[in-house]
């Protein structure tokens, strides 16, 4: 957990005004606590990622939401794949084999 001022101090290039804008655009979602904004560990990591995209990779502020949304979709899809994989792993070896064969477009027959 980090307060907004701690987070701004912890990340080199991060400008407080930028972080506030990202909160307004809901790219990151902090919690309200004792009159300040507090970021969970996951949200801190997310701020670091967005800062890298913005400052190191020079992604424009206007394009940032698009990129972040695509990344969110990527992670969401990976979560679904993880659940699916877990479910497949619980099946018999033969069932797993036919699923894999079907997924890889093999002859299967």
């Amino acid at each position: 957990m980090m307060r907004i001022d701690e987070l701004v101090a912890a990340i080199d290039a991060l400008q407080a005004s930028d972080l506030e804008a990202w909160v307004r655009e809901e790219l990151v979602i902090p919690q309200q606590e004792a009159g300040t904004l507090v970021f969970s560990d996951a949200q801190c990591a997310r701020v670091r990622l967005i800062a890298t995209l913005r400052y190191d990779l020079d992604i424009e502020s206007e394009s940032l939401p698009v990129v972040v949304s695509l990344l969110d979709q990527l992670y969401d899809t990976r979560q679904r794949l993880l659940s699916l994989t877990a479910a497949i792993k619980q099946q018999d070896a033969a069932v797993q084999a036919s699923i894999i064969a079907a997924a890889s477009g093999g002859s299967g027959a």
Partner: protein
Amino acid sequence: MKDPYESLGVARTANDKEIKAAFKKLARKFHPDLHPGDKAAEARFKEISSANDLLKDPEKRRRFDAGEIDASGQERPQERFYRDYADGPAYASHAAQDGFAGNDELEEFLSRAFGGGGQRSERSFRARGHDVSYALPVAFLDAANGATRTITLPDGKTLQVTIPAGSEDRQMLRLKGQGMAGIGGGPAGDAYVELHIEPHAFFHRKDDNIHVDVPVTLQEAALGAQIEVPTISGAVTVTIPKGSNTGTTLRLRGKGIRDRKTGEPGHQFITLKVVLPAGEEPELVEFLKNWQPKHPQNPRKEMLS
């Protein structure tokens, strides 16, 4: 710790702009959050960021060039990337259940199913080749007695398949290492062969026993006889008792299928079927006309009562 100029792939004389451009290019390629499936990305990205941290700061760069500090002094503190959370079990409620499959399982599964596994860089990617499966039609007697068959795969490769005696329909044979070749030196996948056993014209299998209907003539049934009967291992001579009838069942001990686990053979059951002569038999007809049975019978009595 690697030389920071080498890490970024820039000359020692590179200016700030060139360093920034080199970092940007590599960060795009290796930022772990942008490549959640690439395990090697994190180590590579840390190296790149450390090099960038050192070289983008003119004072640190000067001291490094002068030999006052080394590259390891610039290592970043342990940083948790967003993917550590977003790919983690607590990310979404549906993922937090028991038996949650880790990333390794996902990567393994993806590489088996799709061969590649996302955007991994080829040089660090090593994976087991994926499994392939085939259906193999097998004649009834080949399945019963065992056989060796050579199948030719669509890619021209041939595969020697040993069909064990007593194989059952839809039985899956696993041929270890006969699937697709591994990637980057990984082991080959397995081939799965599903046996599709064809029905036989007169043998029927039930568990380890073989059932067969055997036609006998009126005389053989009435008077008894020695007849030749087929079994899965060749013809044998069977004694038909005098006064046999349609439906009479005889057991040929040990002539069935050998149990794959116990090694005990099953039996062959033959059910007799009395057949009347195919051609005209006037003498028989004449005899029957005059025949007075000693025990008159109505075989349909039970059906009509």
